[in-house]
């Protein structure tokens, strides 16, 4: 009897990783709800297709490439961390953060481009002629903007982790930062087709 009850029945995930997984669940539902709202409106207004013509597949594609690469480098960093190869890990982490920087730079260029064409969060110019179309741009900015904020947050997190990890402290945090970073990548995997290539 007593022997039987002493066994721990659930296989355990380390608590840090479990926490990050739960955070990811929460974040994915928030983003997913935005995507769902966008999808509902997109299906409601076939005329939004004109607006999607104005998003730049080039910038979007470039950013997809950058984020996929950064996902790859952070997973390699984690691999190096497990093998206790601190120099390699540090290099890969910095590459990832640099990829994040490139992403934000491309995003800013893209925003500048769109704002120059008169598409802003409220698109006052568009509202006069095509009020329904203006809402597409609200969605565009809220979704990409929130995503860019997460990229920034991920970069800061990774940087803080790197400060410790390069000296060999708290190496397990590389994986946690990496998990978060992959989530940012996942969201982009869906935003890219939704906003840039499904025209």
């Amino acid at each position, binding site marked *: 009897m007593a022997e039987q009850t002493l066994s721990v029945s659930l296989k355990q995930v380390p608590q840090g990783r479990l926490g990050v997984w739960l955070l990811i669940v929460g974040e994915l539902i928030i983003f997913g709800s935005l995507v769902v709202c966008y999808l509902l409106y997109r299906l409601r207004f076939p005329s939004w297709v004109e607006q999607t013509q104005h998003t730049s597949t080039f910038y979007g594609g470039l950013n997809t490439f950058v984020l996929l690469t950064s996902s790859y480098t952070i997973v390699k960093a984690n691999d190096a961390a497990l093998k206790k190869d601190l120099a390699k890990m540090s290099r890969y982490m910095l590459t990832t953060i640099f990829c994040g920087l490139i992403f934000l730079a491309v995003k800013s260029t893209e925003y500048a481009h769109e704002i120059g064409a008169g598409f802003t969060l409220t698109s006052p110019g568009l509202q006069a002629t095509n009020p329904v179309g203006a809402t597409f741009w609200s*969605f565009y900015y*809220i979704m990409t903007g929130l995503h860019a904020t997460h990229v920034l947050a991920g970069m800061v997190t990774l940087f803080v982790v790197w400060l410790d990890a390069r000296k060999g402290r708290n190496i397990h945090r590389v994986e946690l930062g990496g998990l978060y970073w992959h989530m940012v990548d996942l969201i982009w995997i869906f935003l890219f087709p939704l906003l840039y290539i499904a025209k």
Partner: protein
Amino acid sequence: METPHSTTHAPQGFWTKYLFSTDHKTIGIQYMITGLFMAAVGGFLAYVFRYNLAFPGESIPLFGQLDAMHYNAFVTNHGMIMVLFVGMPFLVSGLGNLLIPLMIGTDDMAFPTLNMMSFWIFLVSCLVMVAAFFVPGGAFGGGWTLYPPLSASGYVNRNPAFWSTFFSATPMFILGVALEFVSMLMGGINFLVTTINKRAEGMTPFKIPLIVWFLNIATLDFMVSVGPLVAGAVMLLLDNVVGTGFYDPARGGDPVLFQHLFWFFGHPEVYVLLLPALGVMGEIIPVFSRKPLFAYRTIIYLSLIAAVLSVVVWAHHQFIAGIDPRMATFFSIGTIIISIPFAGVFLSFMATLWGGSIRFTMPMIWALGFIGLFLIGGLTGLYLGSSTFDIYAHDTYFVVAHFHYTMFPVVFFGFFSAVYFWFPKFTGKHLNHTLGMIHFWLTFIPFNVTFFVLFFNGLAGQHRRVNEYSSFSNIMKEPYITFEKISTIGAIVLMVSQFIFLYNLFISLRKGRKAEKNPWDSNTLEWQADSPPVHGNFNPYPVVYHGPYEYSHPSSEQDFVPQDNPIVLKTN
């Protein structure tokens, strides 16, 4: 035996011990005190507008005249404060923090610093909510459901000059709620990780006390259902502050979208509050019946089913909001079906009483009161789950009475049961029994007086959120005018009698009878720690051998077998 951790590292200074503590017990008590403060705020708002309803146009003692603008603001804030700023800290954060580590036999939460942070964010969110009353233009008055376009555009009940600035009431209201969500999400991650990873050795899933199960189901339910509302609130905030058109029909937006997003969270939120309260009953009833909880595993399965169902029935709040009538039928069926698992849980609690040896202690009386009242609340839910009757009853006082019959027992009876039960554990002092009895009867009876008459007002067609019913002379006639007055007098007695509780807390803390380790002869692990538990809770960590509800087991001499007692029980 090696000491697993030190119990002498308790922070000693005033600031670190009582304010910036990472100890789960301190944080839990901080949550509860903040919740009590917000309950006082919410209660005062209720008193003011309840008085105004019964005696329209008269000057309200302690307040003065109440105009329509403030009436709307008070009703709105009363709703939001009572649900998110009283219910959540009492039942989810407060009880969760106090009980989870103790009941699963560990020293603290998985992430103590995160835990402290979530409390401080919660405190900031409370301050934001209260501060919104003092900004130019007054607090937000668009209904606690925040329905756009009223909440999103300039058509609000306030001076448009104060409208679109960020530090006006609407953005503050949304911000306060958003901060509360952030705090609860952080706390929720903590609860789940703690329960999954930090259980004492031997505590298999079905040896976890019911309340820990329920707190975790509630937390998970909260975490997965709050996302859509966060997204919706971000869009609402942008509509409000920047002027986007997510909910503006002129720009293709749809106000019904926000209603969906709101109730997708709003309905599970009811269960987020209900489940911990049920968990409290699940702890109290077996202890004072001296019997195992009836069908412990089945209760857990039923509540898991209910938690899954709870996220697919949300549109029953919108039967007449212009949704597709065929969808309404679907959601009506879902709503009615969800009554079945909860009926199962309640009947199991009642079955626990049968064949028991019932001790009418204070916590038991509150628990029984809870079950009696929630019975009325749950059964009147059947009227409203029926989409056809909801055409008539929606947004009338029938709905108000119904959800006060569910929410008031859940939040306050659940909270009071918990306080009367665990007060000796966390303070080392017993509460005064006589004062407790007076408090119970002066809460139970006035509560029924306040809300039972409102069912009839609702059926007579009186709709809610109207500050002066005098303009509807066809609907508002005798005896409904008298009913309003009865309800208000009941509410005032109800509120005043809560001072007995505060007095009881105060006097018992100072002069109360000293409590032993396990005053109720209870099984669960928290009673095996000291009263009050030291920093670190257990030394050494307990090892669990039995389920939490082995009362009056035939093969044991004592009528209770603590979970960490290594004796072998014969099963028959």
